[in-house]
C-alpha cells in the first residue's frame, strides 16, 4: 500500500474521534435542558457552565480532527 493511500485511510480513521464529541455535546446540552425545565429560575445561573462544557467537549473532538489534518498534510 503506498504512502498516499495509507495517509487517506489514517485521516479517515482519525475522524472517528468526532463521534465522542457529538455524544458529549448532546449530553451537555441535554442535561442543561432537563435541569432548566425542572427549575427555570436557576437556569440563567448555569449558562456560563453550559458554554464552558460545550467548548471543552468540542475541543476534545477537534483534537482528533487536528490529528487527521496532520496525517493528511505532512
Amino acid at each position, binding site marked *: 500500500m503506498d504512502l498516499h493511500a495509507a495517509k487517506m485511510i489514517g485521516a479517515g480513521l482519525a475522524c472517528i474521534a468526532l463521534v465522542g464529541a457529538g455524544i458529549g455535546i448532546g449530553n451537555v446540552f441535554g442535561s442543561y435542558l432537563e435541569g432548566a425545565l425542572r427549575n427555570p429560575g436557576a437556569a440563567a445561573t448555569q449558562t456560563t457552565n453550559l*458554554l464552558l462544557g460545550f*467548548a471543552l467537549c468540542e*475541543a476534545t473532538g477537534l*483534537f482528533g*480532527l*487536528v490529528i487527521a489534518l496532520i496525517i493528511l498534510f505532512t
Partner: protein
Amino acid sequence: MKMDPMHQFAVEPLGSTAPLFQIAGHPIYFTNQSLWMFIVVGSITLFMAIAMSKRSLVPTRMQSMAEISYEFVANMIGTASGEDGMKFFPFVFTLFMFVLFSNFLGLLPGSFTVTSQIAVTFALAAVVVLMVIITGFIAHGIGFLKLFVPKAPLLLLFLLVPIEVISFLTRPISLSVRLFANMLAGHTMLKVFASFVIMLGGAGGILSVLSIAPFFLIVAITALELLVAFLQAYVFAILTCIYIGEALHLHDNH
C-alpha cells in the same frame, strides 16, 4: 482544476520577497498574517477610542457597546477569579478583544484569520500559562506546588499527583489547539462547500440549478461560525480567568 481548501491558510510575504531584518539567522518578513494582526489591533483601538470619545453619563449606542464589552469581561473575572483577580483585567480584556476581533474579521470574504495559525494561538496560550505560573509563585512562594496535591489519602496521592501535573502541563496545548482547530475547521468547511457550489454550477443542466443548495448551506454555516467566533473568544478568556483564580486561591473551596 485543483481546488484546495487549505490554501487560504498559507502565510506568504507581502510585497517584495526580501526579509525586513534577521534575528539570529532567521529572516523576518512582513506577511499577510502581520498585516491582518495590524488590522485587528487597529480596529480594536479605533472602536474603543471612537466609542468612548464623548464620555456622556447616559451612554449613546456606540458608547454602550464599549461599556457592555468592558462589563462583560469584568463580570467574567469577578465570578471566575474573585475580587483580587481584578488586577488582571487589562490582560484578560486584551486577550478577549484580540481573539474576538481576529475571529470576526476572519469571516470577511478574502481575509486571513490570524487565530487559525497554531503559532499565534500557541503564543497566546503560552503567555497565559506563564502568567499563571508566575502569579502562583509570587502569591504563594514554593507553596504553589500544593496546587498539585488534592485532599486524598496518601496511597492515592502517588497516582493523583502525576495525573495533576500532566493535566496542568497540557493546558497550553489544549487552550491553543481548541481555538486553532475551531477556526481551521470552520473556514475549511466554508471553502469545501464553496467548491461544491462551483463544481455543481459548472456541471450544466439541472445541476446548475441545484447549486443554490450548497449556497444556502454556506449562509447557515457562516451564521454558525459567527456564534463559534464569539464562543471561542469567551471560552479562551474564561479559562484564563479560571486558571488565574486557581493560581491565586489554590484549592480554597474545592
